Structures are given as structure tokens and as C-alpha cells.
């Protein structure tokens, strides 16, 4: 299972993507295979694309109870691969709590390579049981942009963290044999959302989520993501202090409007207003060479707008991977 070279006769739900830099200097796919219920599509594209794009899909637009998807990804030196989805990954209700729907992703990125994973959020339906494991092994100069987010379910149907269980684990490792240190865990980000209460006096899952409708994590690593990582750290450091008061006089505030703000300042002002109005909370930290951003918002759309705004404003994702971002 750990082998980067699975047998050619792949099992249900297995898929494999190998991206390689072609002689013309453009990233291309050496291999792309998949088995039902997994579906991978790489649209034909103009040759000047900065990265090769793959749609990570499933038949029926979601995973039915008991589905097992197992995707292995290899990015060769200097190659760039972008993986996106089309719409939420729905996780349908399991008929029994012991029927687990699983999605596993193992990726290896070689030196100078880059992997960008910008899927839509996972939307677990009421009664679903889902476990997602994503393991990334990165060579010393490899880069990774990973977005992983989960919603409360179909809010229009009143679902509000109504699933049985949702386990999500993201791991970033150094590639073994890369230097003297062999295969070290850099970041492990795990969520355990379980409807089972250890004690009746403890909070239910819904109460524990504290009126948040979407929870997301962005993990950035590597030379190509340094600028974006620094951007998040700087924006976090520049957040207005909670509980601080604006002591400026009305005239001073007006003067600011008249004198005008730079484009970046205007953007930040609008973004901060949006954060405040939508109740979006976020934080960023530099952890063992990775920037980890966490965000949560009452409304799914607010989370989507916020992360999109951050990525577009900074611009690295467009610049490095092309205009594939959601």
C-alpha cells in the first residue's frame, strides 16, 4: 500500500497520477489511472500552462457509504501539479455506523516540484461516517499548498454537524534519504469530529462546533510557497487588536478617506470588514517550516470568499500554478 508503484491492476477506488516536466519545459502527466468510484480528468490545455491540472472527481458527485478512494500522486523534479474538484465532495449517509467511507491520498513531491491541492470543501451528510488521510512526503526543495475544509453538511436541510463521525488527518513529512534525517514528520493536523459523547455532561458535536459552519486548514511549505506563507503571517500580525478602541477623532477618520488608501490598504480594510461582518475567525502560525492557517466561519460562503480573497490578493498561486484556483 505504501509503494509509490502500485500493481498495474488497480483495485476499486484506486488512482494514480504522475506528473513530470516534459522536454519543452511544461509540466505534463506521465500517468493518470483511476478506478470507479474515483474519476480523474485532465482537461486538454494550452501548452503555456504553468502547471498540469487534474480534476479529482467521483461518479455521482460524491462518495457513497463504504466507498474507498485511494489516490497516489508523484510529482517529479521541477514539475507542477494542481488538483481541484468540481463542487463539494459530498459524503453520503452510511446505512450503518460501522460502514466507513474512506479517502486516502499519498503524495510524493521531488526536489523543485510543487503540488497544489485546492479542492472544494467536503460536505458530510447527516449520518455519514468518513475518514480522510492525506500524507505528503516532500523533498528538501519541494513545495506544497494544501487546502482542506469541511462543512456542517446540507444546511438547507437543517444539517448542522449531523454526521456520525468525520476524521481528517493531514501529514507533511520530509522525504526519507533526502538528507541525513530520514523521513521526519513536520506537521500533523488532525480533526476528530465524533458524534459519540464520552459523557452526557460533555458538549454534543454541534455544541462543540460553536456555531461554525465551515472549518478549514491551509498548509504551505517550500520555497515556492514562502511568499504566500509570509503574507498570511504578516496579515495575521496586522489584525486589529480585539477589544481595542478606535481613539481617532472623526476628523482623522475622514482625513484617511480623503487622503486615500493604497490598493492593498483598501483591500485589507474591506477584508477586515468582511471578517467582522461574517464572523470569520482565523489564525496563522509558522510550525516547523510550514505555515498553517486555520479558519472558521458561520457560513460556508464566507469561508470560501475569504480564502479566495487571500489567495488572489497575494497572487502566488496564480503566478506559480496558473489560473486554476477556485
Amino acid at each position, binding site marked *: 500500500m505504501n509503494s509509490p508503484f502500485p500493481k498495474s491492476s488497480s483495485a476499486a477506488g484506486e488512482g494514480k497520477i504522475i506528473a513530470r516536466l516534459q522536454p519543452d519545459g511544461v509540466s505534463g502527466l506521465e500517468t493518470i489511472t483511476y478506478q470507479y468510484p474515483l474519476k480523474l480528468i485532465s482537461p486538454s490545455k494550452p501548452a503555456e500552462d504553468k502547471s498540469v491540472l487534474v480534476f479529482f472527481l467521483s461518479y455521482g458527485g460524491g462518495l457513497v457509504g463504504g466507498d474507498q478512494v485511494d489516490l497516489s500522486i508523484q510529482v517529479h523534479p521541477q514539475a507542477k501539479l494542481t488538483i481541484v474538484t468540481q463542487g463539494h465532495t459530498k459524503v453520503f449517509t452510511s446505512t450503518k455506523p460501522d460502514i466507513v467511507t474512506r479517502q486516502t491520498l499519498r503524495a510524493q513531491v521531488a526536489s523543485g516540484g510543487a503540488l497544489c491541492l485546492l479542492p472544494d470543501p467536503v460536505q458530510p451528510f447527516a449520518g455519514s461516517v468518513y475518514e480522510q488521510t492525506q500524507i505528503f512526503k516532500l523533498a528538501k526543495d519541494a513545495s506544497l499548498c494544501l487546502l482542506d475544509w469541511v462543512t456542517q453538511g446540507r444546511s438547507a436541510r437543517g444539517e448542522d454537524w449531523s454526521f456520525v463521525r468525520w476524521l481528517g488527518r493531514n501529514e507533511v513529512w520530509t522525504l526519507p534519504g533526502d538528507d541525513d534525517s530520514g523521513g521526519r514528520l513536520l506537521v*500533523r493536523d488532525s480533526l476528530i469530529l465524533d458524534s459519540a459523547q464520552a*459523557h452526557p455532561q460533555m458538549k454534543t458535536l454541534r455544541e462543540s462546533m460553536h456555531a461554525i459552519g465551515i472549518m478549514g486548514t491551509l498548509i504551505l511549505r517550500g520555497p515556492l510557497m514562502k511568499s504566500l506563507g509570509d503574507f498570511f503571517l504578516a496579515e*495575521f500580525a496586522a489584525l486589529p487588536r480585539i*477589544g481595542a478602541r478606535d481613539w481617532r477623532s472623526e476628523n482623522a477618520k475622514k482625513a484617511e478617506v480623503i487622503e486615500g488608501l493604497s490598493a492593498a490598504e483598501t483591500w485589507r480594510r474591506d477584508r477586515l470588514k468582511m471578517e467582522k461582518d461574517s464572523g470569520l475567525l482565523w489564525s496563522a502560525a509558522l510550525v*516547523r*517550516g510550514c505555515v498553517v492557517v486555520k479558519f472558521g466561519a458561520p*457560513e460556508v460562503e464566507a469561508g470560501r470568499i475569504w480564502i479566495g480573497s487571500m489567495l488572489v490578493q497575494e497572487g502566488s498561486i496564480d503566478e506559480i500554478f496558473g489560473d486554476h484556483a477556485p
Partner: protein
Amino acid sequence: MSQSQHGRAISDEAQAIENEIADLERRLAEAKLKQRQAQQQRNSTQESEPNVISFPSPSQTILHSPANHFLLLLSDSALPLGSFAFSSGLESYLAHNKPSSFSPSPSSSKPPRTKPPPPSFTSFLPLSLSSYASTTLPYVLAAHRDPARLASLDDTLDATIVCTVGRRASVAQGRALLSIWERSLSASLPPSSSASAGAAAAAAAILKPFSALLRSAGAAAPTSSSSSVNSSTSTSTGSSSGWNDPPPVSAHLPPLFGAICALVGLSLEQTAYVYLLSHVKALVSAAVRAGMFGPYQAQKTLARRQVQEIIAAVVEREWERGVEEAGQSVPVMDLWVGRHEVLYSRIFNG
């Protein structure tokens, strides 16, 4: 054997085991009853002969148990871990959930889908315990079960605390505990000739190289009062948070606590209980200093049956969870703790 026969055989076997358990329980109950009756008889004969005063001799296991002694030391709030500097997100939780008195935006027309309840300690405590246990208790248990894994558990845990403030709190208290161990506790371990033979030697074999590794990393221990006001840059948060390779060990509290408790002879259950109770005590003390309630209410909260039951329940929940499966059960806690940095006024360091 057909499948249905096979199934029947299994259910017969299960029935037999159940019968056996019921029988054993019945016999235990009978034996206990006899014991009680005998005791009552003894007591009544003593009362009838007032000139023969006989007290039961003191329990040697309690009076002469080094484990019991260390249990009390390690559960003491006077243990100088510097826990008082941190509120584990309580201060940030209060700031984030304050009824917005002077920041209503006129354009926030859409009310939130469901309003979170107003902030209260009784809401925060179970959330905090659940989160603290699911993220760190597996590391305490694993280090207690095998103290030799201390360094690797510490490195793995360092990879899982993905927030600056949480890292600071964990490392500050872990390094404080390591210092207490080195300067204070380790000298009092029983010599290797005594009953708990080899404890001192085992401890030396594990903790000496660990602290050597910590020193070699050149990681100067950040004191709990080290201020890193308004900064989320790498310099403020210890060397494990930079863009560079992380140091070999960081000295987080959970694995050190588990290993040291094992070395002084605390049972796994005692260790887990003291670990979580200390967290509750730190929270309650933070709540007192944050002005949420006074000292009597604090003791009342600590004494509550509910607190005992929740601690027991989360210990049982985490008992078999491997460190690979540890994770955040209250994701919003990461936001509160992480955003402690952006509070305007703070009385805690985390």
C-alpha cells in the same frame, strides 16, 4: 460446519462467558457481604468491651508509598510549572464571545445561523477538557507506557501543535517540569538497590540524554514571562517554529509528564487523572484571575462530581487512542488559542 451452526456456536460461547461472569459477580457480592458482617461483629464486640482499645494499624501501603508521595507533589498547584501564565484559550474565548457592545456593524444584517451561547465557564470547561485530552493525553499515556520513547513522542507532538500560543504554553511548562526534575525530584528517587529497583537508573538513562539533546539544540528555554507582544514571527516562539529545520526535541509538557510520572511510580490511571485535573485547576485559577468567579466558587467547581466524571470519561475515551490518532476534537479551540495573540489587553501569556 455450516455458517448458521458456526454462528450458534459463537453465541453459545458468549452465553457461557456471560453466565460465568454473572456467577463470579454473585460470589464476589456474597464474599463482600460476609466480610462486612464479620467487620460489624468485630466492631460491636469492641464496643461491648470498652477497656480493650484497639485501633486498626495504619495502612503501610499509603504511609510508605513513594508513589503516593510523588502523586501529591505532582498534583500540587505549588509545583512551579508556570501554568498560571496560561489560560488555555479561556481569555481569548471570553474576548471572542463577549456580547458585541461597541462593535455592531450596521451592514451586518444577516444574523448568524445559530447563536453560540453566551460565554460561561461551565460551557468552556468541558470543551477545553475534551480538546486538551484528545490532542495531548495520548502522548502522556504513551510516554508513561514506554518512557524510552520520550524524545520521539516529543518530536511528534511538536509537529501536531499547529498554533504559536499553544506551542509556547506547552514548551514553557515542559521545560519547567524538566528543570524541576533535574534540580529537585531526581535526587530523591529510591536507590537502585531498593524495592523499585532501577527506577533511578532508568530515569537517568532517559532524561539525561533528553535534556542534553535539548541543550545541544541551543534552544534557550523561554521563560513563561517572555513577552512576545503583538508578534507572530519566528523569533518570538522558540526555535522550533522557524522556516528552518526543527530542533531534535522541544520539551513539551505531555510526554515529559507521562515519563516522569512513570519513573516516580505513579500508575497510568493516576498519571492521566492528575494530568487532566491539573488542567482543570489551571483553568479554574485563570477564571478567578479573569474575574469570572471568586475562590469559593472555584473550589466548588473543582469539587463537583461532574468534573470527576468528565475527567474519568475522557481518560477512558483516550485510553486506547494511539498518538497517531490523536487530534483536535474542538476545532474552534485552535482559533481561540491561536488568536490570543491579537487580544488588545491580556492578563495571560496564552
